[in-house]
């Protein structure tokens, strides 16, 4: 379990990193915390010719509040969020998610941008940030573009990143005071990847709900207007109106063919809804 030989660059700033990325005529991987890429390299599941290490780039560790949203650099670690070292606009939701990602050793090094770029459907940020309505700034030498979370994750381990592009920042909208948050995952054991995730942000006073079913074999199911799960409308009684059969049908349509898996996903989601209402 030793990686195949690879080249290694540690650029001094983002511009230099993008330049190396743009110029490389070899297969390239960006490495930040290395918590997923490290094992994959060791198992020789990926054999890039060049690694570009962005873990030292100060620009990617900045966090600032811009109007109604919080902008986090891609190299902010899970532990930075867990420990409250950065501001929060989600009324503790992100802190709660961060504190339950894998194990502390992983959280110390793993980054929010790295997790999203890896696009593992079972990763917490993939589901949680979709439910929070986050957007990402993707940057290349040619410029930058903004992509909503639900458009960013395309499939299992597949993102909308193009060649030459990296995740620069994550934009998290401030959670309205009237919104309810629920996040539940089912793991075989503490710290392992989830086999079912339910992430919900429900605002009964605005009659809106963002509902995510995650940790399926493809991109998470993101419902930006989830009224159908609650009998057609989102209101104060949403907890009682949650319809498991609709959730079940949505999962079946998404290709989750195994009844036991669907059953677990539906119940995890139901608990997330209940947690939001609590």
């Amino acid at each position, binding site marked *: *379990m*030793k*990686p*195949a*030989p690879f080249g290694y660059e540690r650029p001094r700033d983002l511009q230099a990193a993008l330049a190396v990325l743009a110029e490389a005529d070899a297969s390239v991987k960006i490495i930040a915390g290395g918590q997923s890429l490290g*094992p994959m390299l060791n*198992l*020789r599941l990926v054999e890039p010719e060049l690694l570009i290490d962005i873990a030292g780039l100060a620009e990617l560790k900045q966090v600032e509040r811009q109007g109604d949203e919080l902008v986090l650099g891609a190299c902010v670690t899970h532990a930075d969020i867990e420990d409250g070292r950065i501001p929060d606009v989600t009324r503790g939701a992100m802190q709660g998610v961060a504190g339950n990602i894998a194990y502390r050793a992983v959280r110390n090094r793993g980054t929010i941008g790295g997790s999203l770029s890896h696009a593992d459907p079972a990763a917490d940020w993939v589901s949680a940030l979709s439910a929070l309505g986050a957007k990402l700034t993707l940057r290349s030498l040619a410029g930058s573009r903004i992509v909503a979370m639900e458009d960013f994750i395309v499939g299992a381990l597949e993102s909308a990143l193009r060649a030459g592009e990296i995740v620069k920042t994550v934009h998290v909208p401030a959670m309205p005071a009237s919104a309810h948050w629920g996040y539940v995952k*089912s793991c*075989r*054991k*503490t*710290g*392992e*990847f989830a*086999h*079912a995730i339910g992430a919900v942000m429900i605002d009964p006073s605005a009659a809106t709900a963002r509902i995510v079913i995650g940790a399926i074999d493809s991109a998470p199911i993101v419902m930006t207007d989830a009224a159908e799960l609650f009998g057609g409308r989102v209101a104060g009684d949403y907890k009682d109106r949650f319809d498991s059969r609709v959730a079940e049908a949505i999962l079946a349509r998404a290709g989750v063919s195994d*009844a*036991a*898996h669907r*059953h*677990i996903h539906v*119940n*995890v989601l*139901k*608990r997330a809804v209940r947690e939001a209402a609590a």
Partner: protein
Amino acid sequence: MRNERDFPSADGAGAGQGVGARLPRKEDDRLMRGRGQFVADIRLAGMQDVAFVRSPLAHARIRAIEVPERYRASVFTAADLAGVRPIRAVSGLPGFKISEQPVLATGKVRQVGELVAMCVAPTRAEAEDIAATVTLDLEELPAVHDMRKAREPGSALVHEEWGDNVFLETNFEVDISRAFDAPIKVSREISTARQCMSPLEGRGVVATFDHRLDQLTLYSAAQMPHITRSGLSECLGMEQGRIRVVSPDVGGGFGHKGILLPEEVCLSWLTMRRGHPVRWTEDRREHLTASSNCREHHYRITVYADRDGRLRGIDCEATVDSGAYSSYPFSACLEAAQVASILPGPYLMPAYRCRTFSVATNKCPILPYRGVARTGVCFALELILDLVAAEAGLEPGEVRLRNLVRPEQMPFDNITKKHFDSGDYPEAMRRALASIDIGGVRARQRKGEIDGRRIGVGVSIYCEQAAHGTSVYSGWGIPMVPGHEQASARLTPDGGLELRVGVHSHGQGMETTLAQVAHEMLGVDVAKVRLILGDTAMTPYSTGTWGSRSMVMAGGAVATACRELGERARHIGAKLLQHDPAVVVLQDGAVRGFNGSVTLKEIAHTWYRRPQDLPTGVDPGGLEVTSGYKPQRDSGTFSYAAHAAVVAVDPDLGEVEILDYVIVEDGGVLVNPMVVDGQIYGGLAQGIGTALYEEMPFDAAGQPLATTLADYLLPGPTEVPAPRLDHMETPSPYTQFGVKGIGEGGAIAPPAAIANAVNDALRPLGVELMQSPITPYRVVEAILARSDAERPVA
């Protein structure tokens, strides 16, 4: 100095260090500070690393192995290993078919991960790079992946020359037809998953050749260095004296490290061929996919009982997936053939039948894992006894109490002639039931849970035969039959004590517990007792550490050697005191007479430095004794424990949480109860792994599907509850101090207790699980299957 500060001093009374003392472990000082010396810590000048090319297919004919020209000198295949013989682990049991395991594949590959070529380079990464350039031209053959289908006619054959896939079939029967008219008859199929042993440290090998001694030295993480030496000698065709096996600190064995590895043979050959030291360190993927599988049992079992729950008989067909090869020295039939003799356990029954099959498949060889066969047997028997209880309308605990061997029957020969030395099994069960508060749990169940989970309680009990010796193993005809166990004891010139034993310690704390035995005999401060183990050049021959035998056998040998040493010291001491030897005693580290005493230190000083003061006729053997030991009966000690678990099962998510866990254990006289507690905690963790987490699945092509620890789940600190332990102490009548072997028991009973608790929780839903591990998926699947079955047809 450190030890003298940390340990109760022997000065004064000398109390608190002998048999029964809860001493902290001496070895933990280095192990807990990261100063242990494991195989992977060894650095030798000029050492190079080895990576293996392993078979990517479960079953294939090798057409060609292509090595790029530039690496020809660094890559070795079977064709290079002229004169190296395959590993042959035979058994003398009638009908046993012999497999030959080439150390590098020849002709065919029979499992994923089988060694095909050996690549050597200055670093492991470079060796892996070379391995990646070797291409295998393989003709894939149908894989034998299901042990039950493997017995059907027309199955592909793992070893063509056999004509079938059965290593060994056995049959044992006592009056089974007399049970057939019993009013209660329950039949089930019950199975345990294939597992990986997963010690913290995997295997590792460093091989080097010493021309001065004309000796190959093999450093290996091994439980049984002397047996490894015998195996190497057979494969390499070298005299045993030309081979030294050193096993340094070992990070957990559990049976996995009792096996002769093809890698050990390969590296031994390689260092002699290349003229420099070589190293191979098993990585976790190799560990999971290529070598350390265990536990895969299937039972078709029927229990006959009277209405009052009393057993009339058990009828069983057990199949064990033995994998592709017979492992040295225990052989491929260790598990299945034992099942027939140990299934009845501590229960009374007038009739019994068991057929067993050890089946070859295209998977890793099955290896003995802590509890060897007993975990599966306990799972099968204890699960089906709960169904007898349900049929009889009795509490499961009550069914046990009505059928367990009673204390007044001891010593007791059960229906398979296992000789139980001592114990009160019903009392252990009664205490477990009381401690788990069975009445309280039943009341809680009637009330129901506010969170919708279902509560269940389960019990299990087992016996652990340990330190069984010549009379048991001679019949097996395997390459290793234990006889007497030896130990050497030597007083150093400054009054310290050196002990040399052929068993090894890989987490059991024997550097402490054997020192306690010596202290018990001689009164030497435990801090001044040094254990030397794990080196064929420094220790008496021993079959090593397996079968929970070390405290009984090596403990007995240390006591015997120390007793003889003490006698010699007493005679010297008497002379120094100017007494008749008949009137002096050895007590608390000194020889004492009417009006004075002389310490062992002074006696040692006299023997080594002032021999002019020795009595005439002194024993010329001096203060160094090698002596041997066997218990009065070598049919084994029987320790046992009753386990009881309370679980909460979440029917929505399938999750199982252990709310309470009780263990009432009887290991005879405990040399160090704290070390025993540690053994039980560790065993429980492994048992919980078997019950709820660990599984090595294979697909129909024989590919192992759990190749990293993200797929192969081991319980961690958050999954293992703190059990409540209760010790009983029934001495063995046959052993020194009345000790019994206890090393494996912790891992035997938990899967059955937990599964019974889960089934107790789900029984009102009409759901039962008869397969380990009990995963969330399996729980939900079983519940859904039941509700489908009950749904009225529209």
